[in-house]
């Protein structure tokens, strides 16, 4: 009969209307500023720089190799290499970034910088409330703003951060063992022949695949 479907539809919307006042399950809206959904672990938006320990500058993993700057598809990273060197996590002197800027108004969150970084120094962040009234300065993050501790990395991506830590520890142990062996060999050599040769330099950490 003509009009039957319309009546059924009207009943359905009436049920929804009345039901939304009675049952809370119907209203699935999360009222954002007051309520939030728990973040998903794989969330990512913009990159940040990881540092170990307490001091953001001393513990910065970045050695300013500029691979990320070259690989970045929209070219939103700008790095200025230092003239002097500071020791990295294994104690080897390395360059560090004097300036490290990421323009997040250009960044497209592709994660390529994270993939190419051989030093586990750049990772993806999860903060999304980056609205600012300063259109240029407010969206250009410098080294100070980008540096975040390894503990923070653990809180946002626990699984990934644990893997990275294990990889770095393994690397460090390998380097230390090699240095120890070299030192022992040098000591033995020095004991055997008085004109000593310079000690073997510890190898640089091998490039790793980055975040899987």
């Amino acid at each position, binding site marked *: 009969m*003509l009009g039957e479907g319309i009546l059924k539809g009207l009943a359905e919307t009436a049920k929804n*209307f009345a039901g939304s006042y009675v049952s809370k399950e119907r*209203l699935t809206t999360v009222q954002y500023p007051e309520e939030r959904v728990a973040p998903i672990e794989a969330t990512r938006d913009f990159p940040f720089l990881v540092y170990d320990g307490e001091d953001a500058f001393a513990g910065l993993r970045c050695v300013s190799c500029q691979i990320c700057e070259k690989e970045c598809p929209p070219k939103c990273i700008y790095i200025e290499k230092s003239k002097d060197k500071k020791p990295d996590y294994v104690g080897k002197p390395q360059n560090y970034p004097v300036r490290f800027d990421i323009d997040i108004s250009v960044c497209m969150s592709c994660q390529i910088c994270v993939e190419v970084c051989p030093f586990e120094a750049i990772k993806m962040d999860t903060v999304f409330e980056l609205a600012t009234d300063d259109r240029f300065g407010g969206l250009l993050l410098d080294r100070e703003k980008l540096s975040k501790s390894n503990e923070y990395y653990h809180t946002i991506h626990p699984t990934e951060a644990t893997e990275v830590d294990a990889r770095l520890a393994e690397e460090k142990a390998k380097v230390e063992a090699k240095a120890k062996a070299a030192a022992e060999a040098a000591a033995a050599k020095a004991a055997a022949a008085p004109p000593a040769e310079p000690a073997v330099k510890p190898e640089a950490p091998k490039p790793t695949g980055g975040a899987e």
Partner: protein
Amino acid sequence: MIEKADQIFVLLLHWLVGFLPMAWQHVASVVICVAVIVAVYPALFAVAVLMERKGLGRMQNRYGPNRVGPFGVLQPVADGIKSLTKEDIVPRNADAVVHFISPLVLVVAVFMGLAVLPMGRNMVLVEMDASLLFFFAMGASTELSVFMAGWSSRNKYSLLGAMRAVAQMISYEVPLLLSTVGVVMITGSLSLVDIVNAQTRYSWGLAHWNVFKPWGLAGFVMFVIASMAETNRSPFDLPEGESEIIAGYFTEYSGFKFALFFLGEYVGMFGIAGLGTTLFLGGWSSPLAALSWVPSWIWFFAKVELWICFFIWVRGTLPRLRQDQLMNFAWKFLLPMTLVNLLVAAEWRFVEGVWMRWIVGMAIVAGAYVLMGRVGMRRERLGPRSYRYAE
């Protein structure tokens, strides 16, 4: 006391006008009435917009606006300020004069229609003998403003929207008018005041509203459908069709001109709801004799608000029609049904015996409904179409 509450606005007007010299009293009372109408209906418009947004939200299991003020009740104020502060853009190629006056033409036309509606006992701005005709004349002139808006914008979407609007409004004006003819035939008057007075009789405590009669019920249903199409309400919102032609005829309007179109649309809705209330739901009269102590103007506005609520409910339920469905429905179903309804009204007037005319009337209406539904609205099986391009 009850009498005073019922006539409070009329008494207030007489008291106010009493301060003026005799020669100015008539003019002053008209000016005051117009000012009140022009103030009250936009206020109702704000309430209706809020109701619509909250109600539609609830029908879709959302909260609706709830940020501005407690429970979002100040949302219309925020909307108004926003539309006032927006830039008023006129396209470079637009016909600037027509573009400027078309929202004004719409608003003026819809407010003119309100002049003849009896909004309470003795509460009618202009008492004229052919007020029904006047209302329809004013209602028809909204088509002009819609087409002016679409044409002057120099935009294909606007023009498409305006074309659709004109086609739809002209098609649905025929059943809209014909569905009211039954009321005129039985009442024997074109005056809306007389039509309401004819309905304020009670037997066994129940009012003699036109909707309680077979021809009135059928006429009422068809009037509701046609009035939705006349006011471009969903599911007949093809002229706006935001998913197809952006906003139709007011695509190129921004700022307060857009707000005027919006206002015009809603006030037109109040007007047509008020007319339907007057014709079929007894205007300002109460449904039960026991409830006639409630002031008449409360009844009128309560019925109009209920009507608007129904419009919102339908908007939350039905998807937009296709153009061919729209035209089929108007010409193959509504028009024949309204013509049959005239027959029912005539039968009601001339058949002897209370029960006899009820049975005959209902039989004709139900039979016609089933028959038209089967034959007129038969679903056509559309095969694959072939197109030949112009060479």
